[in-house]
């Protein structure tokens, strides 16, 4: 048990050195998530509500019947030049600025940020096409309610500091506002993917810190912006071991009586017949030098008495090695190994025990020899 305890303390000390700073980061960023204004941190403060079909007007929808759209099986799909061997998966009809397009998808993950291969065709002419910067500007403008000037759209490649998980190219349009809003749009369909501003960037930074996503990627399941990586797994396991060793230490200290949950436990009333010099008073006598004290039942008798100002002789301060803190009880108490070692059997037979080896809850009337007992002497004067 002693070596186990030592181990828990040793593990606890060194692990706290390893994970201490990250532990503080976890807590502080956790508090940030707890207190943050989720609305602001979304980055959508100046984003217009727009349906997924890019605000298709009712008249356009009604007149769609009159459009002569090229049937999909007449599309010149041989022009899917970039990935000619990839099988066709899906064709979506998408409306961009009131005009229909076929979005031809050959590869797509379960999440939109995962790598996707797709092409855009004009649904009326059937020609392979790409949206122009002017069209992207117009879409970005309609999604932005801030009123500040917007930059020219720029087609940029991953990785993105504003969207770590995104693995597809995006159009970026920057607004000249005080919150540094950036609008990101799908490189193919022009759909608004997200707005990012300084509030959203702060939140992203907090997540980076919380997930230890410091760019030191190893053992990654997925190489971008996530929490499944080797560094955090090592730290999480270390922190778990820190918690477990801490709980073990806590339980050990509690059992030892070094601290108690005194609000939860009822105090034990114990009559103490004291004398400041040998011999011990007879445990059955009704001596005037008797004091009734309320003790914490779970702490050792040695500590409990000491807390009440009744100090017994001791060299080892309650460790059970010096055999000094003798007392007599009026009830029979089991003999502990430390008592066998430190007290002669003649004394044990007479009922002498060591106060460091028994809990306050085990006794109700005892006889002790005090040393410099403050409580005892004041009681003696009055009694």
């Amino acid at each position, binding site marked *: 048990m002693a070596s186990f305890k030592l181990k828990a303390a040793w593990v606890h*000390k060194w692990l*706290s*050195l390893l994970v*201490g700073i990250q*532990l*503080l980061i*976890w*807590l*502080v960023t*956790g*508090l940030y*998530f*707890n*207190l*943050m204004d989720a609305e602001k941190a979304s980055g959508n403060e100046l984003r217009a509500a727009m349906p997924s*079909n890019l605000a298709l007007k009712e008249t356009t*929808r*009604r007149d*769609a*019947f009159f*459009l*002569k*759209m*090229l*049937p*999909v*099986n007449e*599309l010149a*799909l041989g022009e899917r030049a970039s990935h000619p061997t990839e*099988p*066709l*998966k*899906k*064709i*979506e*009809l*998408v*409306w961009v600025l009131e005009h*229909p397009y076929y979005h031809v998808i050959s590869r797509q993950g*379960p999440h939109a940020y995962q790598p996707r291969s797709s092409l855009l065709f004009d*649904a009326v002419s059937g020609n392979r096409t790409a949206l122009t910067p002017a069209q992207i500007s117009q879409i970005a403008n309609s999604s932005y309610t801030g009123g500040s000037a917007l930059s020219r759209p720029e087609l940029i490649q991953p990785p993105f500091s504003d969207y770590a998980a995104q693995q597809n190219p995006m159009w970026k349009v920057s607004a000249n506002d005080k919150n540094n809003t950036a609008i990101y749009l799908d490189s193919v369909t022009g759909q608004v993917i997200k707005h990012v501003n300084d509030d959203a960037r702060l939140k992203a930074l907090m997540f980076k810190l919380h*997930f230890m996503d410091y760019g030191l990627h190893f053992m990654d*399941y*997925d190489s971008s912006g996530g*929490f*499944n*990586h080797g560094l*955090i*797994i090592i730290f*999480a*396991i270390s*922190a*778990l071991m*820190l*918690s*477990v060793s*801490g*709980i073990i230490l*806590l339980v050990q200290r509690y059992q030892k009586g070094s601290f108690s*949950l005194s609000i939860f436990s009822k105090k034990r009333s114990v009559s103490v017949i004291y004398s400041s010099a040998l011999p011990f008073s007879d445990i059955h006598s009704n001596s005037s030098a008797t004091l009734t004290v309320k003790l914490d039942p779970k702490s050792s008798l040695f500590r409990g008495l000491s807390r009440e100002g009744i100090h017994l002789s001791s060299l080892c301060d309650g460790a059970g090695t010096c055999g000094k803190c003798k007392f007599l009880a009026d009830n029979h108490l089991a003999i502990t190994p430390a008592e066998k070692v430190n007290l002669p059997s003649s004394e044990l037979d007479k009922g002498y025990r060591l106060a460091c080896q028994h809990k306050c809850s085990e006794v109700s009337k005892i006889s002790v020899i005090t040393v410099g007992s403050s409580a005892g002497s004041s009681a003696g004067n009055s009694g």
Partner: protein
Amino acid sequence: MAAVGLQFLLWTFTGVYMVSMDIHYIHGESLIKPQSTTLNLSSVKVSMSTLFAQYPNASNFTLTQLMGSPIYIVSTGSSKFIVDGSTGVRKPSIDEETAREIAQFYYVKSDAIENTRLIQSSAEMPAELSSRYLPVWQVEFEGIANPTFYISQQTGEVVTKRHDYWRIFDWMWRFHIMDYDDGENVANWFLFIIAALGVAAVLSGSVLLIVRFGEARSEHTR
């Protein structure tokens, strides 16, 4: 502070689970059989223009596959339905038998189906399902970790899936953010108080640590 200690244990234990389990695995992505069939355009006999003429309320169409055959998913703003891509015939909403067939077609293993039921309102919805998927068929497989598919009654798509690893993850998340009802509210007072006490505990711990290492050093030099 003992309460904070207990929450430290919960934070770190749940944290280990969440970081060490691959999130895509948690999301049940491995429950779906990889699909390699190409959408065969030569078998598509119906054009989107024809569909616009037939369904004047529609706004969007998606040509995709259901169990290897081409279908159109037609969106009318409030609801969706499917049209057979080769015949142009509108298909009825998915019945129980078809739902089971779809589930077995897309499930990566060959476990038997244990239970199937239609969920139409949020009142009969399990907590793990979002109401945006309604109405939906719940198909439960007999297998390790109770795999469950949710199949849209309107489109036949496997809209979401669950297994126990995800269900456990959701509980881990609740214990992590200390929100024990629906697990959605990070901004709760309980978390605030314990996290703030936690910061105090870590700071006092670092003082103790410095004292400890200081003691060790002075013992060495003695």
